[in-house]
């Protein structure tokens, strides 16, 4: 399988990465090189094989439903580019 220019633009949008028109042909070539490389997986017989979901056979651990951290709003917003009164600021979302 290979991707066309429209698909490259769609993937970039899904990944939320701005891509200029000039970058599309180059990206298309790189992505198709990767897709050509992984194409060989289609020759593997996977009939009846379970997909791997956990690399070590272990039961999913569950935590107690208790509050064990918190009250650290200063720490939470400390690295944010724009904040106000412990809130993260973003461009207007609802008109």
């Amino acid at each position: 399988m290979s991707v066309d220019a429209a698909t490259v633009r769609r993937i970039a949008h899904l990944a939320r990465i701005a891509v200029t028109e000039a970058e599309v042909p180059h990206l298309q070539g790189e992505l198709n090189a990767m897709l050509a490389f992984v194409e060989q997986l289609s020759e593997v017989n996977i009939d009846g094989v379970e997909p791997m979901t956990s690399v070590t056979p272990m039961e999913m651990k569950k935590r107690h439903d208790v509050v064990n951290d918190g009250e650290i709003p200063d720490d939470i917003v400390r690295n944010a580019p724009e904040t106000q009164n412990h809130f993260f600021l973003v461009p207007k979302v609802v008109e």
Partner: protein
Amino acid sequence: MTDLTSLTIAEAREGLASQSFTSLELTDAHLAAIEAARSLNAFVLETPDQARAMARTVDAKIAKGEGGPLAGIPLGIKDLFATKDVRTTACSKILGNFVPPYESTVTSQLWRDGAVMLGKLNNDEFAMGSSNETSCFGPVVNPWRREGSNTTLVPGGSSGGSASAVAALLCMGATATDTGGSIRQPAAFTATVGVKPTYGRCSRWGIVAFASSLDQAGPIARTVRDSAILMRSMAGHDPKDTTSVDIGVPDYEAAVGKSVKGMKIGIPKEYRLDGMPAEIEKLWSEGAAWLKAAGAELVEVSLPHTKYALPAYYIVAPAEASSNLARYDGVRYGLRVPGRSIGELYENTRAEGFGDEVRRRVMIGTYVLSAGYYDAYYLRAQKVRTLIKKDFEDCFAKGISAILTPATPSAAFGVGEKGGADPVEMYLNDIFTVTVNMAGLPGIAVPAGKDAQGLPLGLQLIGRPFDEETLFSLGEVVEQAAGRFTPPRWW
């Protein structure tokens, strides 16, 4: 006091305990070495004040006989590990000047045991790369050069700063991480020892995530014994990482020097690649001969799905990366590039913040997880992964204790030499190491010889799940036979 930097951790431990020198002296010797080696670009942040403060504190403890297992040992930390109040960037522009208000579990255990932090080490951006050329801080220089040549060589990646710093005697050991070979390949390129533990052995908490089902932290050191010493402090159960395994941490150092007599060592025929350089072939046979001379039995084994590990990896790892890296949105931390809408803010921030390799992988990962392609790519790759793991299980079920392979298909290459036209060319570096991540197994890379140009080459040993001890025993046999290799100082 410059001699202090050439000690092993085991030797320094003795010198500190007998008070032949202090941790402050040892730390200062390393800080001076780091300063003199800035041209290697191994450190992206030096923390001399913190290092000296930690050294003084631990010296006081040593004097009272309260030093821990790593008391006073100066280490470098890969910039993928969150260090409290010390800038942590994963060598990506998108993390900018991120200063974590918390400490990763692995590094907190090193400090608990008395180690001293010298600074943060360069790596490929988000650990995506095999040459340390994708770092936003620029490439790391390998202290090794081809004989009679001044060509700048890469130290491998993604833990290139860790490998380069340990090889150049800038730190006694370093933390590293391995998702497809990022500890073992740079170790092989720099004549250092690199250990990728079993998945679940070391906590991933506080380590910047790349591909969560593959990532493992491990040490890079100058000897097998030193790597075992570091492993004991780095490993252990952590309730904050649900994939961390709740089993006891053995005394790895006790396994160093243990007899390997009677062990069955597998030689996988599928690793004998067409066009493999004769030097690698020779190194591999030599390694087998050393283990045989130590009393191990060599058995040819088959891992039939080996050739599919790398393509399956280049679906699974980017898929997980695209999901993990969704958090970099320009809102909560790191870089922010404004936009007219929130969508534009995300897109501009991520376009500006991610380098080319990261963008490529996030995009391929997004594609293989997208509607209509999930089954053909991601689901198929996860099934192939089951088959790769089964290959190893079948092998171990026949009584094989460990598997011996070359660590890399070549020695270190020049900066800018690979992957320019086709990214896959660079990916092939991990052909011998990536199977281990796909199966969640432990692996160790040990220096074993040099190529015709005088560059180091390494051997890899792959172990059963949670049996790192056998790897330390076998690794020691290789080290004793091959000797140790130090690059001549030119920087």
